[in-house]
C-alpha cells in the first residue's frame, strides 16, 4: 500500500469517527438551546400576565391571541416554580408530532396564588436530526473526496524528491565509477535521506574499488611466485629423475598451470568489471571467430568431434578484439569439453547473434548457475569454472546478451549483439521444453 494511501485512510477513519460525534454534540446543544430559549420566552409571557394581574389591569387583551391559562390554586406555591412540562403533542392539520412545551408559573398575588400556564408548540428537535444526518453524509463524502484528490496531488509534489532519489538508486551501478549525486529538496527528511544514501554509496564504491584492486593486485602478485615454481620444476625435470619423481613433478606442473589460469581469469574479470577495455571500436568479428574456430577445430578433431560453421562475412561488431577472441575461444572450449566422443559442434554467426551448439549430456546444475564463477556443469575435473563467467562479463561490458538452452540433446549458447533482435525473438512463443536463460546486462 502506498504511503499516501495509508495516510489518507487514517485520515478518513478519523473523519468518520469524529464527524458523527460532533454532530451528536451539536444536535444536543441546539436542542437544549431551543428549549431554554422557549422556556425563557414563555416565562416572560407568564411574568407579563402576572404583572398585569398585580396591577389589576385586564389581561384579556393580552391573552387573546396567546395560549395562556390563568387559574387560582389553593394552598402554597409549589416547590418547583416554574414547572416545565414537555410532551410531544399533535397539532391539528400537522402531520408530524410537534413538541408541546408547557410552562406553569405560580404567583402569590394579594394572598391568592395564581397559576399562569402558557404553552407553545414547536418543531421537535429530533425532526431536524435527519436533515443534520444527511448534511453529515454529504460532509463526509466531500471531505473524503477532497482528501483523496489532494493526497494524490500532494504526493506527486511532496514525494517528487523521494521518487528522484529512488530513480537515482535504481540506476546506480557500483561498478561504474560515477558517484551518486542526489538533488537537494526543501524537505528536511528527504535531504537527510539523500545525504545518508550518498555517504553510503560512496563508501560502498570505495570498498568495492579496494576489493577489486586487491583481487587484481593479488592476482598479479601471485604470478611471480608461480613463475618461480614453474621454472624450478622445469629445472628439476632437466635432472635425472625416476618415474615416480617424474610423475610427482608432472602433477605439480599441472596444478601450477591451473593456478596460473585461475589468477589470469580473475584478473581478466576484474579488468572487465573495471571497464578497462574499449568496446566502441567496430571490428571484423567474423575473421576473429573463424581464426578461433579453426584453432579449436584441431582439438575437436582429436576427440572425433565434427565442427561445422556457418559464419557470415563482413560482420562488424563493437567489441575489443581481444575480448572477441576470448569470447569465442571460451565458448568453443566449452563446446569441446562438454561434448561426447563423435559429437558435433555447429557455429553460426550473423550480424545479430553468435550461436554455438554442441551435443552432450545435460548439465546437472541449474541453468542460471552455469554463468556463475567456479560453477561447473559436471564434476569432471577439467577447467576451473571461470570460462562462462568471463563470457557473461564480456557480454555485459559490450552490451550483448548471452543465453543458454538445452534442446534436443544439444547445448546451445547464443550471444545476441543487439537487443532489438532479442526482443523480436521473445515475441515468438517458444516451445515449453525450450528452457532458455537470458542474462541481462547488469
Amino acid at each position, binding site marked *: 500500500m502506498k504511503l499516501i494511501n495509508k495516510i489518507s485512510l487514517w485520515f478518513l477513519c478519523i473523519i468518520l469517527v469524529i464527524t458523527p460525534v460532533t454532530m451528536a454534540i451539536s444536535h444536543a446543544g441546539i436542542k437544549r438551546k431551543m428549549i431554554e430559549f422557549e422556556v425563557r420566552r414563555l416565562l416572560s409571557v407568564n411574568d407579563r400576565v402576572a404583572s398585569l394581574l398585580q396591577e389589576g389591569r385586564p389581561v384579556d387583551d393580552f391573552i387573546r391571541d396567546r395560549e395562556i391559562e390563568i387559574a387560582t390554586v389553593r394552598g402554597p406555591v409549589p416547590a418547583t416554580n416554574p414547572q416545565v412540562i414537555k410532551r410531544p403533542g399533535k397539532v391539528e392539520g400537522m402531520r408530524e408530532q410537534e413538541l408541546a412545551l408547557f410552562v406553569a408559573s405560580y404567583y402569590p398575588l394579594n394572598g391568592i396564588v395564581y397559576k399562569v400556564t402558557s404553552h407553545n408548540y414547536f418543531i421537535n428537535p429530533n425532526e431536524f436530526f435527519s436533515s443534520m444526518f444527511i448534511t453529515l453524509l454529504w460532509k463526509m463524502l466531500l471531505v473524503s473526496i477532497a482528501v483523496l484528490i489532494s493526497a494524490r496531488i500532494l504526493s506527486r509534489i511532496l514525494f517528487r524528491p523521494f521518487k528522484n532519489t529512488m530513480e537515482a538508486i535504481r540506476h546506480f551501478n557500483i561498478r561504474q565509477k560515477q558517484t551518486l549525486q542526489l538533488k537537494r529538496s526543501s524537505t528536511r527528511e528527504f535531504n537527510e535521506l539523500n545525504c545518508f544514501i550518498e555517504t553510503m554509496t560512496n563508501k560502498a564504491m570505495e570498498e568495492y574499488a579496494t576489493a577489486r584492486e586487491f583481487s587484481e593486485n593479488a592476482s*598479479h*602478485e601471485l*604470478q*611471480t611466485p*608461480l*613463475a*618461480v*615454481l*614453474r*621454472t*624450478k620444476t*622445469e*629445472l628439476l*625435470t*632437466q635432472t635425472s*629423475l625416476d*618415474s615416480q619423481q*617424474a*610423475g610427482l*613433478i*608432472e602433477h605439480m*606442473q*599441472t596444478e*601450477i*598451470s*591451473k593456478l*596460473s*589460469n585461475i589468477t*589470469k*581469469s580473475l*584478473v*581478466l574479470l576484474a*579488468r572487465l568489471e573495471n571497464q*578497462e577495455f574499449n568496446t566502441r571500436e567496430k571490428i571484423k568479428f567474423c575473421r576473429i571467430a573463424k581464426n*578461433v574456430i579453426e*584453432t*579449436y577445430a*584441431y*582439438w575437436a578433431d*582429436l576427440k572425433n568431434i565434427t565442427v561445422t560453421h556457418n559464419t557470415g562475412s563482413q560482420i562488424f561488431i563493437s567489441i575489443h578484439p*581481444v575480448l572477441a577472441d576470448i569470447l569465442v*575461444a571460451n565458448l568453443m*572450449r566449452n563446446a569441446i569439453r562438454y561434448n561426447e566422443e563423435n559429437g558435433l559442434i555447429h557455429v553460426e554467426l550473423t550480424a545479430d547473434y553468435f550461436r554455438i551448439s554442441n551435443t552432450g549430456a545435460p548439465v546437472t546444475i541449474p541453468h542460471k548457475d552455469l554463468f556463475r564463477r567456479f560453477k561447473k556443469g559436471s564434476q569432471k*575435473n*577439467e*577447467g*576451473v569454472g*571461470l*570460462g562462462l563467467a568471463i563470457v557473461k562479463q564480456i557480454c555485459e561490458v559490450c552490451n550483448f546478451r548471452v543465453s543458454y538452452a538445452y534442446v534436443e540433446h544439444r547445448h546451445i549458447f547464443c550471444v545476441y549483439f543487439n537487443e532489438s533482435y532479442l526482443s523480436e525473438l521473445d515475441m515468438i512463443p517458444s516451445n515449453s521444453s525450450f528452457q532458455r536463460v537470458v542474462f541481462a546486462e547488469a
Partner: protein
Amino acid sequence: MKILIVEDNSALSASVRDYLEAEHFICTCAFGVDDAREKLSLFTYDFVLLDMMLPDGDGLELLRFIKTEKIIANILIISARDALDDKIKGLEGGADDYITKPFHLPELHARLRAMYRRNSLQGSHIITANEIELNTNTIEARVHAVLLDITPKEFDLLLYFIVNKDRVLSRQAIATHLWGDYTDNLANFDFIYQHIKNLRKKIAAAGGNDYIETVYGLGYRFKL
C-alpha cells in the same frame, strides 16, 4: 651471448640464469632500475630481460633509458600483466617481444633465440641439427636436403625442439608455445602426442633419425 636479467625476484632470476647459462648465455642479474641502469651504462649486452614491476621503479622507465641512450640490445619484457595495454606500451617503447609470468623456461629461451635471428646481423636463418635443416625465413624444413611437407605448427614444434635440444619439454610448455593462450584451461594435453607422432612420421619418411624421445611422465626431449 650476454644477457642482463632485470628481475627483482632472486629465485626467478636464478632459475632463468641457470637455464640460460646451460645454453651458453653469459648472464648478469640486476635487481632494480638503478642497478640495471648502471650495468647498462657500463657494459654491452645482446639481450635485456626486463621485468615490468621493479621495487624502485617501472620497467618502462628503464626501456626509455635504453632508447634514449641508444643502447643496442634485444629487449624481452617480462610482466605479470597479460593484457594488452602493457604489451602495446612495451612494444611501442621499443621492446622486441613480451612474455607473461608464469612463463616456461624453454619458451623464454626460444623467444630470445627468435629475437636474435630476427634482429642480429650475425643471426642465421638456417638452423641445423645433424641432417635436419630449418629455414626460419621461408618456414621450410629439410631432412638430408629433402623438403618436408609439414604444417607451420609442426615446423614451429620442430624449431622449438631444436632450439631447446637436450632439454625436457613438458606437454604444457609445448602447447603454450604452439597455441598460446588458447591452451589455458585445457587440462588434457594428449593432443601433443598426436602432433609429435605426425612430426616423427614425416621425419622418418624423409629418412631422418628419430631424435624425439618420450620422457615418461614429463614430456619430450630432442636428443641429438
